[in-house]
């Protein structure tokens, strides 16, 4: 199910299935953008029994620590509900950011 199309380049696209939600992240993730994605993701998860939340980094070419905040927040949300968080499509630069942050201790990277 497609919830929202890319419109401004700032917005995420969501694929929602019974047990998982796939979040296609936009090209730039800063505080302004991640705030919207966090709200939208939580709204989507609220009334569903989602076991797995997956963030697709394929289109991401900029991210600051607000992206780490988004992942950390999602991890806490899913852990409370017995689910997990994964990322995929991570390039060298994004992998460096995610590694420095230590987030791989709690979320998986799908290659």
């Amino acid at each position, binding site marked *: 199910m497609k919830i929202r199309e890319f419109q401004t380049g700032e917005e995420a696209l969501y694929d929602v299935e019974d047990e998982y939600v796939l979040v296609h992240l936009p090209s730039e993730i800063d505080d302004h953008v991640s*705030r919207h994605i966090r709200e939208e993701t939580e709204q989507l998860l609220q009334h569903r029994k989602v076991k797995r939340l997956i963030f697709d980094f394929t289109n991401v070419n900029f991210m600051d620590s607000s992206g780490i*905040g988004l992942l950390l927040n999602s991890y806490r949300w899913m852990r409370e509900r017995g689910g997990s968080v994964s990322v995929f499509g991570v390039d060298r630069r994004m992998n460096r950011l995610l590694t*420095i942050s230590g987030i791989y201790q709690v979320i998986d990277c799908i290659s």
Partner: protein
Amino acid sequence: METYQGQDNRMRLEFDSHSCNESFARVVVGAFIARMDPTMEELEDVKTAVSEAVTNAIIHGYENSIGTVVIEASISGRQLTVIIADTGVGIADIRKAMEPLYSGKEAEGRSGMGFSFMEAFMDTLEVQSEPGNGTRVTMTKIFGRRAYE
């Protein structure tokens, strides 16, 4: 006025503390340093560090009010100096604020890694602040290390 690659240069930018200006600020600084012929990694490092400092000014400095964020950047030889300043609430305990994973606003889903990222991606980081008198973050980075060393 003509500019030439290799010439020292400086810029100053002032904008309102709206979160939509985070991307504007890093793009401007990115364009300013383009003449230094940075590698993609150097460019992204600076943009990330600027984004962190500007976000701090908007979120922590001015909290829910709108104030002015000032960016001053200068190029001297191969070194970039960038200063991000606000006149917001200031930081009472700078050392604590700079601790990895410390966030004054954890409930809002922040990672507490802003200063850690600035330190990781720039060569030096200095934070001057006092409660009620705003915050001034000064960062430097030398470009082209790999080519010269």
